[in-house]
């Protein structure tokens, strides 16, 4: 074989991948750009200014909404990933058994119904419960988000699991490992990239949800997307860009730290 021949590279793949990254960040760059707009528009540049960051600092409503969004997203992603992992373990790598198809359809059901329908249905049911129990806290939003995040976490995990080699787990059993130990030390690490992928997908999905949150929320439970939706029919100012930029900056910081933490492991 010729030296320098990489088994892994495919023609054009790196180019398309990098193009993809560029295109992904292009609108984001626009977003950040207009956060520094001196004018009131999200589209007409009128010079550099930090006024929207200042106004965002004073806007407690937006800040609360953002924090709430993040909280709900992290919690729902966490819970739904756990549920999805367990479900994936039970429904993959087995021959068809009675009930498998049912479970698969059930788990993926939230994907199939347009959000507005789930939203209205939840509005009706949850409102009844709110009246009966008098509890109208954040639990309903968490339940709703966890529910629709499950299929988003489930599918990547399942994809990961489907081609995994069972011999490793059998080997562990041969070496007298208990099922739990075999799971913890063999299956779980092998599944890990799938779980991470599932978690991130669930996180992003929950963060973005507009419709279901709009209908399920009670007084004082605004999230960032619903806040923006409310603005849509009136005016959208660069204040929302400023908040998003701050948010992005924090996320990038988080990822950079994560990266350096991981480097040490190598």
């Amino acid at each position, binding site marked *: *074989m010729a030296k320098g*021949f990489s088994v*892994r590279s*495919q023609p054009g*793949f790196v180019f*398309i*991948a*990098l193009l*993809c*990254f560029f295109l*992904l960040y292009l*609108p*984001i760059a626009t*977003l950040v750009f207009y956060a520094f707009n001196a004018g009131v528009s999200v*589209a007409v540049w009128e010079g550099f200014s930090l006024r929207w960051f200042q106004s965002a600092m004073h806007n407690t409503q937006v800040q609360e909404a953002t924090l709430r*969004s993040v909280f709900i997203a992290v919690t729902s992603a966490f819970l*739904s990933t756990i*549920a999805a992992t367990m*479900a994936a373990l*039970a*429904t993959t790598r*087995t*021959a*068809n*058994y009675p009930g498998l*198809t049912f*479970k698969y*359809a*059930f*788990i*993926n*059901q939230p994907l199939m*119904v*347009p959000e*507005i*329908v789930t939203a*209205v249905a939840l509005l009706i*049911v949850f409102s009844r419960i709110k009246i009966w129990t008098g509890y109208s806290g954040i639990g309903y939003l968490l339940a709703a988000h*966890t529910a629709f995040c499950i299929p988003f976490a489930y599918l*990547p995990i*399942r*994809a*990961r699991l*489907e081609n995994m080699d*069972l011999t490793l787990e059998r080997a562990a059993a041969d070496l007298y490992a208990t099922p739990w130990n075999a799971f913890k030390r063999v299956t779980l690490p*092998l599944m890990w990239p799938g779980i991470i*992928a599932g978690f*991130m*997908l669930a996180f*992003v999905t929950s963060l*973005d949800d*507009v419709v279901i949150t709009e209908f399920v929320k009670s007084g004082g439970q605004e999230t960032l997307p619903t806040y*923006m939706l409310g603005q849509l029919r009136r005016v959208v100012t660069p204040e*929302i*860009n400023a908040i998003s930029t701050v948010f992005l900056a924090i996320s*990038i910081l988080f990822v950079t730290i*994560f990266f350096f933490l*991981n480097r040490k*492991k*190598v």
Partner: protein
Amino acid sequence: MTTVREIAEANVQREIRRRWLLTAPALIVIFLAAIGPLFVMLLYSFMVKGDYGDVKFGQFSLDGWFNVFFTRDIFDDTLTFADAHLSILWRSISLSLITTVTTLFFGFPTAYFIATRPQHQRDTWLFVVTIPFWTNILIRTFAMQEVLRNEGIVNSALMAMHLINSPIQIMFTNWAVLFGMVYVYLPLMVLPLYASMEKIDFRLVEAGYDLYATRIQVLRRIIIPLVNPGIIAGSILVFIPSLGAYVTPRVLGGGKSMMLGNLIELQFGQGRDWPLGAALSITLMVVVTLALLVYVRNASKGEGSHG
């Protein structure tokens, strides 16, 4: 004395119980906060619509379902087949199909790229791909407008390079909607693909090259089949939700061209016909569920435990 048969049966029972226990949390949560409430929708689809939205509870009617398939002309009361609904359905299906194929086209190399980075870098690259999606969808769509509008980035760049003389109208066309949809659904394709690709045993790939295969052959015959579960998962995650999408088509498409999601949402808003909205969505759900079940049945036939 317990026979081998009894032991085997006890094992099977234990296995069945174990599987139910494992899937229980997922099933319970989804039942409580997703499927259960849908029974309400089913009920609503059989009721009389309220004057200002909602339904007249307790009053039953088949109008909701009737209006899914037939329309009555407003002025002369003639009955026709609801071909407006059909064209909307067709529009949505084609958009979703094209979106799925496009995300696959862009997502496959991207996922592959991430999966072939050094081990410790992969999670970071995953973050890099998903960070744009940590800003919420509405503001991303607004940002997309900035890229696509007549004085936006794309047009300005093309004009600066003298490739065109006057701006191309991209905003409010189907192209804008496609760009927006691909942008929104890309991570749903990339992440499952990545999960599947990350475990590719490149010794198999190397074996292919040793047998004088070209790169394209290796791609087609070794890599793609290995990643098939990821491709299927990603396609499901993109195709199905995109059928009911309505924010992106509305904002980038201008609202003139109605998609299935917009049609259903209209019934719960200014259309004030909740029964019709309920009936339409149940129809959609049934069709998609059937298609999905057919897939699972076929996929499971070929599956067994890998040894």
